[in-house]
């Protein structure tokens, strides 16, 4: 299956109640697959093509406010349009899933893969102090796995979860193992699991209000303190990463998504040259695996961050490393995917020989 299709199928199987989207390359297969699968017949899931990205994310906001499992998907320019809605969803503390199959920017850019939306995904993107949980798949299997995981984390923390993929992972075909169908929540389960949701005010409770507004600054500050506390909890509990051949490494590559796949090959090529290189692959970009990177920085001689951008994740790598060892960025931009040999060359020039 294609990565985009695997994600769509996994979303149905994760018991999703609603998908709201707008076509944009390279992620249009998500809605195409959903429409073809008729999930309204399979599980009762609603799939609607909205008039805009703005409408789609606000449909997600509406659905999430009712305690439903809702999601949207888009690619970079469309994700920019969704930022207002994401900020409201984060402010109102609602769970939802947002897939970004990243393409190169800025502006309309090109439809080829890139990783240049890292800042937007991990640092906010919309207005106000908020964070999304950001999962970075590096295979079609993870495109499928992160749909149920994303919903689980979104509901656990009442927070939007972004799956930050890219055009290569979305479009490539690989074998994938899919989970069994999880039944959608019944109305009784929604009322039990999300007692805050606007399901209709019954006599036995006060009305439920979903809002991000409080005109009282003192209360608004308390709300912000609460949000920040939640983000620190997420950092404590949900940091995910994978290490490959780091045990004896003299040098380290940090890379996620497509760049991690290329870097894994580069590790093999460098080891064939006799240079002991390891790879740390962040699976969550927020929370960022700062601690394991900091620990590895005590043991290695240099770190190369590989990302299909002008150097965004490198800032978080350097914050983790401090000044313990040299940490440099290598990447290609504009939709160009670096080759493993280019990563090897960068390691030689910027880290080993640099």
């Amino acid at each position, binding site marked *: 299956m294609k990565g985009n299709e695997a994600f769509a199928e996994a979303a149905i199987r994760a018991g999703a109640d609603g998908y709201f989207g707008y076509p944009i390359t390279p992620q249009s297969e998500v809605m195409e697959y959903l429409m073809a699968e008729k999930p309204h017949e399979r599980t009762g899931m609603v799939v*609607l093509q909205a008039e805009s990205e703005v*409408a789609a994310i*606000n449909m997600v906001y*509406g*659905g999430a406010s009712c305690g439903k499992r809702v999601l949207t998907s888009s690619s970079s320019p469309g994700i920019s349009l969704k930022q207002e809605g994401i900020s409201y969803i984060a402010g109102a503390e609602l769970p939802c899933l947002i897939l970004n199959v990243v393409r190169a920017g800025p502006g309309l850019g090109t439809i080829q893969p890139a990783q240049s939306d890292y800042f937007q995904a991990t640092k906010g993107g919309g207005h106000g102090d908020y964070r999304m949980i950001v999962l970075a798949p590096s295979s079609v299997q993870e495109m499928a796995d992160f749909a149920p995981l994303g919903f689980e984390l979104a509901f656990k923390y009442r927070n939007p979860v972004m799956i930050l993929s890219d055009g290569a992972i979305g479009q490539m075909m690989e074998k994938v193992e899919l989970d069994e169908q999880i039944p959608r929540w019944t109305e009784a389960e929604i009322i039990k699991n999300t007692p805050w949701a*606007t399901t209709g005010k019954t006599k036995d409770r006060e009305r439920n*209000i979903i809002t*991000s507004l409080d005109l009282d600054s003192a209360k608004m500050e308390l709300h912000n303190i609460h949000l920040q506390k939640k983000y620190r909890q997420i950092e404590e509990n949900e940091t995910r990463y994978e290490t490959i051949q780091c045990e004896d490494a003299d040098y380290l590559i940090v890379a996620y998504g497509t760049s991690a796949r290329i870097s894994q090959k580069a590790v093999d090529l460098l080891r064939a040259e006799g240079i002991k290189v390891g790879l740390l692959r962040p699976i969550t970009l927020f929370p960022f695996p700062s601690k394991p990177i900091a620990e590895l920085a005590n043991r290695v001689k240099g770190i190369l961050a590989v990302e299909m951008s002008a150097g965004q994740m490198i800032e978080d790598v350097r914050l983790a490393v401090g000044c313990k060892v040299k940490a440099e960025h290598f990447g290609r931009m504009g939709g160009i995917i670096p080759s493993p040999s280019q990563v090897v060359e960068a390691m030689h020039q910027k880290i080993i020989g640099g």
Partner: protein
Amino acid sequence: MSQITKEEIRQPENLVYKKTELLTDNPLSYCPGCGHGTAHRVVMEVIDEMGIQEQTIGIAPVGCSVLAYEFMNIDMTQAAHGRAPALATAIKRLMPEKFVFTYQGDGDLAAIGTAETIHACNRGENIVIIFINNGIYGMTGGQMAPTTLPGMKSSTSPYGRDVALMGNPLKITELVAQLPGTLYVTRQAVHTPAAVRKAKRAVRKAFENQKLNKGLSFVEIVSNCNSGWKMTPNQSNEWMVENMFPFYPLGDIKVND
């Protein structure tokens, strides 16, 4: 004439009217004389009389009625500016057995939310839109709205709306009436007891329509903004009758049964 005390007024024989329990006791944040309070009351009385409080989800806009959820005793979500019809679309489709409505002003519905309004109407979403049109941005301090009349003064059209420079007011209610997805489109007012009764009948019809599953019901309420128009409440209602109603004539625009 001797002074009548509060206690004397509150004698049982004088209690001919009471506030619906679907309005909370929170003091309204609207300016004295504004039509919003009456419009809130009309909508909540209809939901009360239909006995559908437990099945109703409301969407508050951005604008003067951003805090509608403080006054309406039902489950509500506060939308981003102009996006209420998008939220309502999803909520109704995900919970088709519920009654879903948006409550929006003219800036919200007919400027920043034009796309969401038109497309929700055109898709025929089975929801109710309550549209309060007072021809001005009240909450932000009286700026020109999409519905500000030609020649009408506002803080961003201080010499009056010059159509050549600022464009024409948008009759969005007539516009949505053209769309196949709307079932019932009407324009009402709440400035006199007779108008309130008519508006309430229209709102009732709109909510009853949700049971038919035949499309969107759109109720415009032309209202005053005495603060924004820089008038007393009485003057503003007179001005509304003389100036707003000729441009925005009251009555049903589309009725499909």
